[in-house]
């Protein structure tokens, strides 16, 4: 109960911080729109319509959730370190992983904003008919995807806490996930060796569930896979966090100086 409260309050305050930052708040919305616009223009040039266009619009909109998470997650702990709050978080009695998950969840939430913005942009600027067959399953799948991507961001943030240049690595992970997780490109088109990697990434299953909901197919299996991976990330993240914090206490790498 108190854990849930902690996650909610922290998530809300982090969302406040993010919405007041030009990088997270403004660019977090604009950046996915740049890519979505490019993609809409490409599909328009190809003369696509109907379900192919809808599928592209849904895929492009979900790209934003990962986009908002990947760069910020790898950057946020460096920022906490620079402003001197990282030490305070570690010195608090609450377990560190429990503090970081709401942080990355808030990033994925900004991404969910951008998802809505992209869908509206597609609808009103490009006239793409957003016909969702099963709205309830669509919303549910989106929520699960936000949590799944938040958890992946959590793993990324925790693993890179010690590296000052982590933001560049996070930024470089943005497009590979778009590329292999089936946002726009069907998995079958990719080389065979890429597929197992895609299966280990929660966004693959979340995206699949969202698309299935939009087309009126069943979502349960995809959602379960996404949730299972999210739990696995959380578990790995906890182990990594324990190891990282111990090493930081031994090697004095929490403070910037």
């Amino acid at each position, binding site marked *: 109960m*108190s854990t849930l*409260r902690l996650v909610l309050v922290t998530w809300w305050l982090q969302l406040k911080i993010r919405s007041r930052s030009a990088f997270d708040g403004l660019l977090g919305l604009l950046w996915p729109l740049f890519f979505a616009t490019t993609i809409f223009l490409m599909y328009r040039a190809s003369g696509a319509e109907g379900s192919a266009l809808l599928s592209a619009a849904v895929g492009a909109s979900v790209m934003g959730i990962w986009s908002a998470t990947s760069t910020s997650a790898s950057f946020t702990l460096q920022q906490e370190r620079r402003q*001197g709050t990282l030490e305070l978080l570690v010195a*608090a009695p609450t377990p560190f992983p429990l503090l970081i998950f709401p942080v990355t969840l808030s990033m994925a939430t900004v991404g969910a904003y951008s998802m809505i913005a992209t869908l509206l942009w597609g609808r009103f600027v490009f006239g793409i008919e957003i016909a969702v067959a099963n709205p309830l399953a669509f919303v549910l799948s989106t929520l699960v995807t936000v949590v799944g991507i938040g958890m992946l961001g959590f793993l990324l943030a925790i693993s890179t806490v010690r590296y000052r240049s982590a933001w560049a690595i996070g930024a470089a992970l943005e497009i590979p996930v778009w590329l292999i997780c089936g946002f726009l490109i069907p998995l079958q088109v990719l080389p065979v060796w890429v597929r197992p990697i895609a299966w280990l990434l929660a966004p693959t299953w979340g995206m699949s569930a969202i698309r299935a909901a939009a087309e009126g197919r069943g979502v349960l299996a995809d959602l379960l896979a996404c949730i299972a991976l999210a739990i696995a990330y959380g578990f790995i993240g906890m182990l990594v966090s324990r190891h990282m914090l111990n090493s930081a206490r031994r090697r004095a790498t929490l403070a910037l100086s």
Partner: protein
Amino acid sequence: MAVIEVKDLTRTFRSSKGLFRRNAREVEAVRGISFSVERGELFGLLGPNGAGKTTTIKMLITLLLPTTGQASVLGFDVVAHPREVRRRVGYVFGGDRGLYDRLSGLDNLRYFAELYAVPPREQRTRIHELLELVGLTGREKERVEGYSRGMRQRLHIARGLLHRPEVLFLDEPSIGIDPVGARELRATVKALVEHGTTVLLTTHYMFEADDLCDRIAVIAGGQIVSSGTPDDLKQRVSSGPVVEVEVYGVLGGVVDRVQGLPGVRSVVVEERGQAQVLLVHVEPGAEVTQAIMSCLDDARVGRVVTREPTLEDAYIELVGTP
């Protein structure tokens, strides 16, 4: 049982530079210190920059692991039981870092209240109580980025007190705040101690330590060079009062003659603009002012002052800077 118990604590840092040819360098920041702090005491760690004060505090609040030695806070070992320690201690450092600039002061406190598991029902009253204590009532809804340095520092203190810590660690809390703010800060700290909080303070401001601390450990080069009450330190180090005589044109031989007087320990000449000042360190109880004056013959004499040694005299002598 002591609230803070430190035994033979050491801490070594390794730093390495370069990507391929890594040059490892070892720095011993803390070299075997021991002290204990009793409940309700205000204990000061006094020392110059780089003496090992912050490293010591960070080991005590569980942010750093000791290289060797032992430390416990409230009976909990800082290595074996970090969470028990964290729950019960507060940590405040000086400077303007350590706050979320884009959040209001109130939101900053809410966040840390959550982190320190302050029960939801108490949070509101506790936060308002603290805002009142540090004098930020009325400004709490503004974003921290607009706060002055002093306001930030006061918000820090409120943050450190949210969970009513039994032990409070203050790491150079008055750095960069104006004299009025510093005085208010000292009053706040005194009030906390009166209410039973144990405080460990680091500072390099002598008057701050003198004014606040029950006991002081002077730390230099990672070692405790002396400890005791401020009065103890002054007496132990300095031989006695200092007579300062302003003279215009000290004649040859005067210094030697003064040095030869009974009761005089040492004489130093300091240039101060046109004048020279004889700093005469005197043995306790000896009365030498008249004798000094007679040594000076016809030299024009300005101000003559006899003063008790300050903590600064003691400190400078202890940490060994001229």
